[in-house]
């Protein structure tokens, strides 16, 4: 009766083969994706870890030829510029994403905003740097940490806005209806229900944007400029890790090259630590069975 559904030996062999081929193709691709990251990190540890010492984190750069210099000002500078960028870029990005998914759906303006965000995402970072140079640095007649924060903040906006939009749209319609059906005003429902439900995805978007701008060098050349001395002032030029790495890697001294490797390692670790920290803090309160 069931004979017509029984497969021949050849058929079974073919299925065995295709099944294993597909599995190994997937495994192989995974290795290919992970390998460069592991290789870069290993290389950084190998070349950079030996130059990491207490001085690196506490001392200012020293003139070429002397030893014992560090990148303390660049580490602090990076933190200042990135904090400033996040403070400006994340709220604007999230608010824009909320507009796109909840209030502007189907309107002309939302189409324009979405298109602009996608274009902005593709603008070369050096062009962004020049633009902010023209808008802030030239009129104020000084390179500044503020200008650096603004340019990185603007670069965060499109990523944050588009991920926020996508994540909000993934929240089921029934959840919004539940809130509106309780007599909750729409704005409240959007913030306390839809955005909150979409939050894990929104945070991932913010972290992606953060990690991307944390390593930017070109836009900072025109805005934050760099600074060999201590500065946390927002209206003064400020050092940042990518700038310091750039200068040292191109320099003629072996000591500089070693420090550049160490700086790269610190920059990567700084990104990994801040992303993990945000993940840890934001997932701590999640309830059993929440999805």
């Amino acid at each position, binding site marked *: 009766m069931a004979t017509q559904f029984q497969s021949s030996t050849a058929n079974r062999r073919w299925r065995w083969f295709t099944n294993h081929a597909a599995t190994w193709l997937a495994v192989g691709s995974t290795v290919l994706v992970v390998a460069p990251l592991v290789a870069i990190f290993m290389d950084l540890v190998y070349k950079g870890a030996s130059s990491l010492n207490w001085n690196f984190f506490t001392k200012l750069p020293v003139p070429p030829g002397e030893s014992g210099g560090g990148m303390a000002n660049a580490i602090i500078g990076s933190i200042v510029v990135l904090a400033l960028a996040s403070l400006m870029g994340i709220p604007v990005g999230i608010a824009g994403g909320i507009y796109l998914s909840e209030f502007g759906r189907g309107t002309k303006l939302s189409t324009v905003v979405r298109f602009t965000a996608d274009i902005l995402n593709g603008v070369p970072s050096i062009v962004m740097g020049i633009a902010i140079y023209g808008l802030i640095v030239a009129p104020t007649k000084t390179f500044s940490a503020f200008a650096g924060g603004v340019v990185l903040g603007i670069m965060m906006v499109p990523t944050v806005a588009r991920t926020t939009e996508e994540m909000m749209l993934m929240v089921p319609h029934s959840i919004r209806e539940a809130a*509106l059906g309780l007599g909750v005003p729409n704005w409240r429902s959007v913030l306390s229900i839809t955005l909150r439900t979409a939050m894990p995805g929104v945070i991932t978007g913010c972290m992606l944007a953060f990690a991307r701008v944390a390593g930017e060098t070109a836009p900072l050349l025109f805005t934050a400029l760099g600074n060999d001395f201590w500065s946390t002032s927002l209206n003064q030029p400020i050092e940042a890790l990518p700038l310091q790495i750039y200068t040292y890697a191109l320099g003629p001294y072996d000591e500089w090259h070693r420090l550049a490797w160490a700086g790269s390692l610190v920059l990567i670790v700084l990104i990994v630590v801040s992303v993990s920290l945000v993940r840890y803090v934001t997932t701590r309160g999640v309830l059993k069975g929440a*999805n």
Partner: protein
Amino acid sequence: MGVGIEVNGLNAWYGTNHTLQDITLHIPANEATALIGPSGCGKSTFVRCLNRMHETNPIAKVTGEVKIGGQDIYSETSAVEVRRRIGMVFQRPNPFPTMSIYDNVASGLKLNGFRNRRVLDETVERSLKHAALWDEVRDDLKKKSGASLSGGQQQRLCIARALAVDPEVLLMDEPASALDPVSTAKIEDLIFQLKSQYTIVIVTHNMQQAARVAERTGFFLNGKLIEFDSTHKIFTNPSDKRTEDYITGRFG
């Protein structure tokens, strides 16, 4: 206490689709009223017009008069006010996934700015008891997400959430159609108990369910209210041929 609902000449559209045509009926207070009819007949649209949820769809339009407890909900008050007085339970259980069981029940009050802890605690306990869910969840109130419960428990959680804002009317849009028979029986028991305190309007595809829980039944077909009478009359001696055809399973 529940209040009555008077509907006069209600028409509703989705775009150009005239989904409700000239509906007039009077739903009495503190009774359960069932609305039956084939899919797409307009019964869901009708209950969504009773709490102005219909308007959340941008292409929807409505004309006519709906008076709840004597107040015209379209001209004398706002949509948000109306929905606070009229609770709604949807076809698919829709607890807020990021909230605990406690917060789900308290959400209607909390999201409207109510903060008094003692009153919130009391309201949550009372509402969960009313929804016959208290004994099953009392130990996990703040530990578990509303989404971690079973489908039937989630639906009772949604009923508790609707009851917590102390509505006068409870609208239920096929509340048991996504549930198994045991959970369905629990929901029906619940409707039976709740109707002494609330006016209940229940949309259902299940005619036995209408016969079991409701005093009155309305039959909708193609956007029109064909017949509205006591449940007993509708199921034993309907006046309209189309009603008879539907309840005897000859179409729909």
